[in-house]
């Protein structure tokens, strides 16, 4: 309910004027206004970026700084301390060292799947949405069917049929990408459909621009926020799915990821022995990374849908009641 006094503070640098929140048919500004497309700074974005960067650095640089993660020791399961930041596994391996390598492994797979899945969903979603007709119907049917068939069971079945020797990182990434692109393609298709009907796209088509040019020059730039958001989703999905897969013992056989760490922890009876230093850190890293990515996604969401923006509180002091 509205009152005389405003409930919220003024919007800072609005993307569009408050009177028309719907982008409507207005053509986006030229490249020099990239500023307008980038997410607006906020604590959420800061925390998100911070988490992601920190963990990424941990995974990239970490392995170079620690010792050998697979070096066996006969001190057995020990808690943190006495030279081992995060204790050791039941075979005396350094948990901290393992953690860095595992993070790198998970990030690698996450990135690979993210790129592949986004590419697939872009292909089926954008092209289907733009071309329309039979192509669109069949693409759409295909992605809906892929969507509705449960993902993890399918991945499990596929992974199980591949002999362990051939289950490498790439193979796992491919399987995950194949099962994970469907949701994004629906979103991209919906966006493409809505953009396709905008005035400037119609103008481009009428003036005879080739379809591929229309797609790359007019439509794609406006899809960037959505694409970015879907990419982030894909990475989160990939890391979680890979972790689950590895935990079940079906992951990539030749690499170490956060999921495989948990698998070994489970098999090494870490739970029963209350060896929290073994199974808590991997999961925490997954959770924090996923959380960071989600926070970034929030900010991207606010670009896509201006109605979601919460105005910053600290602008109150600067607001002047103009006469």
């Amino acid at each position, binding site marked *: 309910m509205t009152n005389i006094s405003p409930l919220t503070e003024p919007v800072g640098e609005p993307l569009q004027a408050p009177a028309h929140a719907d982008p409507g048919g207005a053509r986006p500004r030229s490249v020099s206004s990239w500023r307008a497309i980038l997410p607006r700074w906020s604590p959420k974005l800061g925390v998100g970026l911070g988490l992601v960067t920190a963990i990424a650095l941990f995974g990239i640089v970490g392995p170079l700084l620690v010792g050998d993660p697979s070096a066996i020791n006969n001190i057995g399961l020990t808690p943190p301390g006495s030279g081992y930041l995060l204790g050791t596994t039941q075979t005396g391996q350094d948990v901290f060292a393992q953690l860095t390598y595992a993070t790198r492994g998970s990030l690698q797979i996450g990135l690979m799947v993210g790129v592949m899945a986004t590419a697939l969903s872009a292909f089926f979603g954008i092209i289907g949405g733009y071309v329309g007709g039979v192509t669109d119907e069949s693409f759409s049917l295909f992605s809906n069917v892929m969507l509705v068939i449960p993902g*993890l069971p399918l991945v499990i079945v596929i992974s199980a049929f591949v002999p362990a020797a051939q289950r490498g990182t790439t193979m796992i990434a491919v399987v995950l990408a194949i099962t994970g692109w469907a949701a994004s393609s629906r979103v991209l298709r919906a966006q493409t459909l809505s953009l396709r009907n905008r005035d400037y796209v119609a103008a481009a088509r009428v003036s005879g621009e080739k379809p591929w040019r229309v797609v790359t020059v007019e439509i794609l730039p406006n899809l960037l926020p959505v694409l970015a958001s879907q990419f982030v989703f894909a990475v989160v999905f990939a890391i979680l799915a890979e972790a689950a897969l590895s935990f079940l013992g079906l992951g990539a056989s030749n690499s170490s990821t956060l999921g495989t760490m948990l698998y070994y922890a489970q098999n090494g009876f870490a739970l029963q022995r*209350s060896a929290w230093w073994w199974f808590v850190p991997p999961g925490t890293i997954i959770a924090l990374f996923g959380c960071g990515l989600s926070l970034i996604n929030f900010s991207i969401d606010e670009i896509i849908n201006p109605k979601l923006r919460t105005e910053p509180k600290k602008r109150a002091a600067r607001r002047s009641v103009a006469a």
Partner: protein
Amino acid sequence: MRYFVRKLAFYVVALWAAVTLNFFIPRLLPGNPVDILMAKLQQRGGSVDPAVRRTYELLLGSNSHESLWSQYVSYWYNMAHGDFGVSVSAFPARVSDVIAQSLPWTIVLVGLATLISFALGILLGIIVGWRRGSWLDSVVPATTVLAAVPYFWLALILVALFSSTLHWFPLLGGYDVRLALGWNWGFIGSAAYHAVLPALTIVISSVGGWLLGMRNMMVSTASEDYILTAQAKGLRPGRIMMRYAARNAVLPSLAGFAISLGFVVSGAIVTEQVFSYPGVGSKLLQAVQNNDYALMQGIFLVITVAVLGANLIVDLLYGVIDPRTRNHS
């Protein structure tokens, strides 16, 4: 009407696709699963029964010169009769029996947990989305942390906390194994008690997604014109929130139910593993570890049918709630 028919047709197609997928996967991937299976069967003491071998070959592909098409047809025949052959990991039980015994556990656990999670998430989403700018808004990012937490890891933590340390809940299993199975209060009570942690895991992990989606939609809907009309009409805020805003805002959540259910099912499988819950999920994993391809295929099919069924129900529900679909399909 057209809407309902279209939806039904879609799910028939999806079902066909799933069954066909099931048919082709073992045939496309390297390896010779039938021989492996037969070897295992012999290990367990089974005989090289040609009928059994035939069933396996239909399921998994064979080196014989039989045409793919006739294999496909016979495969469908078997599927329709629920004949998946004999389970290797649970020898000498038939696959269909193994599934029939473990399926109820999963359905009850996952079904109830999903319903609770959905209801809770949607309700909280309505409240948080309606009262924008309040402290509740800062809760939202916190739920994303929960959504990013891997199911099984959360399960591990819960187990470590509530079972190993506090001993409030049992460590694993679906029920106290000393009790006899049956519809008596002791058994049901024990089953419920054992289901709390697994259900909690599922609910905590998935409630964030529903909440976020609903909240975003509520925020969007709040600026719609019919909300303005409702306010101008002097209706009570509660009524506006539910009848006008929420009713419209819930539609995308229903439409996106398919995606969410996929995640819930995936999470449920892993959760069952962690808790050694006697459902279909842990049987699937057991099958994988034992190369029990027949059981694997059977379970995959059953899970798919269940998910498709649930989605069909929700889609039909959507058609009822949103009158616009009935005319334009």
